[in-house]
């Protein structure tokens, strides 16, 4: 991401990998930045589920662990 290394860049862990976003990026922005349609996707930050309607209101902070899940084949 272009913000990498810039002053104030927000460093996160997304699905176990390091990820950098610009300050003020929300959960909604992160999901869009990953190229995902919101439908069929769920997000947890530091183990707490973030409901979809609050995605635009939830800014991401440095050091947070984000899990972005979607459906997979399963019995």
């Amino acid at each position, binding site marked *: 991401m272009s913000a990498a290394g810039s002053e104030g860049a927000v460093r996160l862990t997304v*699905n*176990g990998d390091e990820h950098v976003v610009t300050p003020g990026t929300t959960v909604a922005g992160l999901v869009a930045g*990953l*190229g*995902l*349609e919101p*439908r*069929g*996707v*769920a*997000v*947890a930050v530091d*183990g707490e*589920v973030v*409901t*979809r309607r609050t995605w635009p209101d939830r800014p991401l902070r440095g050091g947070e662990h984000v*899990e*972005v*899940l*979607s*459906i*997979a*084949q*399963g*019995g």
Partner: protein
Amino acid sequence: MAEPLRPDGHDTDAADLGEDPLVIAGETFRSRLILGTGGAPNLDELERALIASGTELTTVALRRVDPSAPGSLFDLLRRTGIRLLPNTAGCFTARDAVRTAQMGREALETDWVKLEVVADERTLLPDPVELLDATEQLVDDGFVVLAYTNDDPVLARRLEDAGVAAVMPLGAPIGSGMGIRNPYNLAIIREAAEVPIVLDAGIGTASDAALAMELGCDAVLLATAVTRARHPVTMAAAMRHAVEAGRLARRAGRIPRRLYAEASTSFEGLADLDTGG
């Protein structure tokens, strides 16, 4: 083999070939086969198997997004119109299962969850303590819980008391294809329960599914038996027929087993052809 201990609420004299829907938490399904999506070799085969099975409810897991193939399973399933049932596969604790159920609710906008809380990777057997704990939390949180459980009549009763929408006892361990190892326990579970009983796990082939229905189960949930069959689409069709046949046989009321023969042809009026010689 266990005999049904009582009719499952149906007047067998009135049982006909008409409507006989499965009802879970007020939702009606014409198919009594729930086909899981796990283990399919590819999405095309999965879609054709789902359609061949006639299922109206299918399970999915929740995993980290794969940006290389986003949404394709979701698109496929939406195209089929089959209702989705998120599961908590891979969870070993009530805490993880509750979180995963909440993620499933967010992802799929459904309160329904197939609750799985297993004890270890080798057996994948349900952990009864964690399962009951998770059930209580999820029911409190408004979930419709379909609980994958052991074939334990006491645990089944405890789950029903905790408010599950369906009790889903295993026939044998997940993916084992060992069939129904304890039909007697299933009969006891069926007899005591007021909620639907869904045989979940262990089915290997069509006769296992038919037997589950003959024992009085209200539905069968299976995945591996179809998705890992040599010809998944053909096996999906076999399972559809097996579940229907087993259900009809159950409603029809089977004859009792007996040690000796009972002639179906009357001896009355039998000719005496051994005279006059």
